[in-house]
Structure formats: C-alpha cells, structure tokens
C-alpha cells in the first residue's frame, strides 16, 4: 500500500463516507437549490487558474476546497482572527471576507507561494529562529501579514502607533510597539506574540 499523508488519508476516508451516505436514506433529503456559477480567471502563486464558482464562495473556501491550498487556515471565518490572510495584488487581505467571484484578473499569493528559489522566505526563517509559534495554526496568516507589514513600512505607511502621522515613516521606525499594532489583526491563542514581534523586528533590521 502506498503511504498516505494525513490530509490524503482524511480526504480518502471522507470520500468513502460520502459514498456510503449516498446509498442511504440521506439520498431522499430535499435538494438544495443550485446557484448559478460565475467564471473567474486569476493567478494564484504565479499559476493561471480558470474556474467556475458559486457567487457565495469565499476566496478562502476556493483556495482550500477547490485548489487544495490548505496552508491558508479558516479560524473564525468572520474577519476577526487573521488566520486566512493572503495577498491580493500584493496587499494583505482576509480571504474569508472576500468573494472569489470578485477576484477576476487578480494576482493572489498564499503561504504556498512565498518560498524563494533558495529556500524559505526570510520571514519564515525568522519565525523558526525566534520560535514564533507553538501549535502553528495561525502561523501562515501571521507570516503573510508580517511580509506585508514590512512592505507597508517600506512604502512609508504610518500606523495607529505612529505618534506623528504628518512625518514620513521609514522601516527604521518599526519599533516593537509599531509591530504589535500592525500585527494586531492576527490572533495567536498560544500567545506567541513576543516571539512573533522579535521575528518581524529581526527581518526589518536585516533590511
């Protein structure tokens, strides 16, 4: 028997359960109205994709369920925890709060798409070096957010922790309090916050 990883095993056994259910009385359950589908063409992790989706499909569900990109996590599914953070057109967004039908023509990057030719993204490496996670569930969202935080600071964006927004902001101004504020949309229930701040700070100092 070929070896299965955990996700493949769950997927296979799930299909078996589905097949059993189809033969049972569940078959007689009332049909749910099938919505019209919308055609979407976009680029995910540098790969062009064309698909038909229901209007109500969130980008998060499309990434996970249809494209198999399960590195992006579903935490609250209400825009409160940040676990589903991905980049659309280079900007960090919450994939649970946006509809796939609205992503036509967009360039999307997920945690699966940030590795470089030479290995881990510097932010990934820093999270390992600084022990920036315990259970790891929020980590992909934390890393996608952190990469964007560094880009936003380089662009000169101020934050609510910036004492004088009228002055130009530079990466050198990224203090621990600035990083805490800018990362506040990503919750970590293992409370690895101090180590996450250290990791982001370290990458910002490396320039």
């Amino acid at each position, binding site marked *: 028997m070929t070896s299965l990883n955990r996700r493949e095993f769950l997927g296979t056994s799930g299909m078996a359960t589905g097949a059993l259910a189809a033969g049972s009385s569940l078959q007689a359950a009332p049909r749910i*109205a099938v*919505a*019209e589908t*919308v055609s979407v063409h976009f680029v995910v992790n540098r790969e062009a994709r064309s698909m038909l989706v*229901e*209007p*109500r499909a*969130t980008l998060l569900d499309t990434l996970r369920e249809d494209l198999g990109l399960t590195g992006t996590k579903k935490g609250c*599914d*209400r*825009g409160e925890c*940040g676990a589903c*953070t991905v980049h659309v057109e280079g*900007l*960090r*967004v*919450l994939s649970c*709060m*946006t*509809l796939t*039908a*609205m992503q036509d023509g967009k360039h999307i990057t997920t945690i699966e798409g940030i590795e470089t030719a030479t290995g881990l993204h510097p932010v990934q490496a820093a999270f390992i070096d600084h022990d920036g996670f315990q259970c790891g569930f929020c980590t992909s969202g934390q890393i996608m*957010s952190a990469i*964007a*935080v560094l880009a*936003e600071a380089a*662009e*000169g*964006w*101020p*934050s*609510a922790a*910036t004492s004088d*927004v*009228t002055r*130009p902001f530079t990466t050198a101004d990224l203090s621990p309090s600035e990083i*805490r*504020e*800018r*990362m*506040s*949309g*990503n919750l970590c229930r293992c409370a690895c916050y101090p180590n996450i701040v250290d990791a982001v700070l370290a990458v910002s100092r490396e320039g």
Partner: protein
Amino acid sequence: MHSFSITTAADVDDAVRLHATEHGLAFIAGGTDLVGLMKDRASRPAQLLDINRLPGMSGIVLLADGGVRIGALARMSEVAAHPEIRRRMPVVAEGLLFAASGQLRNMASMGGNILQRTRCSYFRDGDGPPCNKRVPGSGCSARHGINRHHAIFGWSEGCVATHPSDVAVALVALDAVVHVRGRDGERAIPFADFHRLPGEASAADTVLGPGDLVVAIEVPARAEASASHYLKLRDRQSYEFALVSVAAGVVIEGGRIRSARLAMGGVAHKPWRLPAAETNLEGVELTDVKALENAIAADFADARPLSDNGFKVELGKRAVLRAVQVAGSRA
C-alpha cells in the same frame, strides 16, 4: 451563506438604474461588512452588484484650495497613507488608522466605511432576539438588555445602537460632503445630514434611498484640520471598536483657542457633533484645564445614558478634553 447572484454594471448610471429597479439588490465594494452580515444572516440580499470596477469612483484628488476629494472606492489604507491627507488633515488619517486591522483597511472602501452597519450584537445576529433595525417593528432588545456599547445621545425607545465608523467622526468634524449619484443625477449631502437618528423607524442608517450610490467624499479646507487629532478609547488597545472616540481640530492664537471643531463616535446613531462646546471653547486658554472642562461639559447635559453605559458620560468629557489638548499641541 444564503444563495445569491452577483453582477456588474457598465458605469455608475447603469449601477444606479439597477439598484433602483432590481428587488433585493445590494452594492458590494470591499465586502468586509456585508459578507459578515450575510454569514450571520443579518442581511440576505438576492443579488449583489460588484461596483469595484466602476469608472470614476477611485482615487484621491487634491483640491487647489487645500481640500481633498476622496473617491468612494479608495481603500482605507490608501487614504490613511496619503502624505497630503496626513499633512493637511491628520485627524482623517488617524481616524482610519485606528480602525479595524491592516488587512481590513486594505479591503474596505471609503464609501463602504461610512455605510457600515452598527455593531449592536442584537442586530448582527440574524437568528437573534428582536431588533427594529433588522426586522422593523420587532422591538429593541438592547434598550433594556446588554447596552454597555450603546448610545447616550439621540437614541429612541426603538433603537439605541451606535454608528461604528471612526473616520466618519473626523469627516463630520471637518464639514465633509458626501457626493451621491441617484436617479435624478448627482447631489451633495453635508456629512452631518448623511446619517440619521433612529426616531420612530430605525431600519435606515442614512438618508440614502433606492438607486443612490456614494461616489465620493469631499473634505473642504478648514483651518482647524491641520492641528487635529483622533482619540479612540476602547476595551483593547488595538483592533476594537470605540467605547467613545473624539475628533478634534483647533485654531490657536496667542495660546487661546480661536475656533474648534469637535465630534464624537461611539455615543449615538450617527457621528455626534458638539456645537455648544465648539462655541464655548472660543477664547479659552489651552492651558486652562478648568475652563476647558467647563466649555466641554455643555453638550453632555443632553446625555441620557442606558443601564450599562453611564460611564460613557464622564469618559466622553475626559476624552474630549484630551483630544483638544493634543490637537492644540499640534498648532
């Protein structure tokens, strides 16, 4: 989520026509509020119209007189980062930066921000207890329920909800104008008249009707804008809605306040202006705390706190004082 269809429009006029004629059609831009409401069954539009690609609604235009015209589709983060908005009207940049999270600010549009629905949890739970805003005529569960976050000014027996936007507080203080395209063309609505009080019918948050689409927000040049500050007080230091917030802008001459602009968030169904305090502050020395306190107290005589939010009266007075002091220090 319930099943719905999604469509686009060729231009603004087409979008306006569809909204006026199609039953159950809602505009969607960033979606950060509407998608959450749909997930919680508090809103069930039959059809969404994606307005993100409509021409002429994006961008930030600097006006020669010192004002700014902000397209309704401009994203919160884009406006907050704009160097000239930060310089000309820091209260607007701060109002945006103190709201939501970095991810949400990249998604949420300016038009959607001022149209966001209340955070009242009785309203947000589509399967929850009565709410006149969600189901007109069903009653208000917050009036004698859990109302710590609710209004102290301008509420009615039928609704005690507050408006959640931060930047709206800054915009009303600076006399911004909302440009709306409707069936009869474009009209300009003064920001103070854009949101409404609940009164007898609390379902509507604003004066907009079928076919109305916010296309831009214009912030005029005001002398008080450059020495301004947004102060937000909340249960968490970040990523939380306001208990009370204050937008303050002042002109200082010889150590005294020549003119002041003040508005509060988290205290009413709409961004709440403090006209008496503005008048009373004229001529007051910025360092005379007692005189500042007396001037500010006037508007709070109208406060009618609920069972759980009496603290907002004193917190509000102190927040206004602090915001005026910080704004004054920037003059």
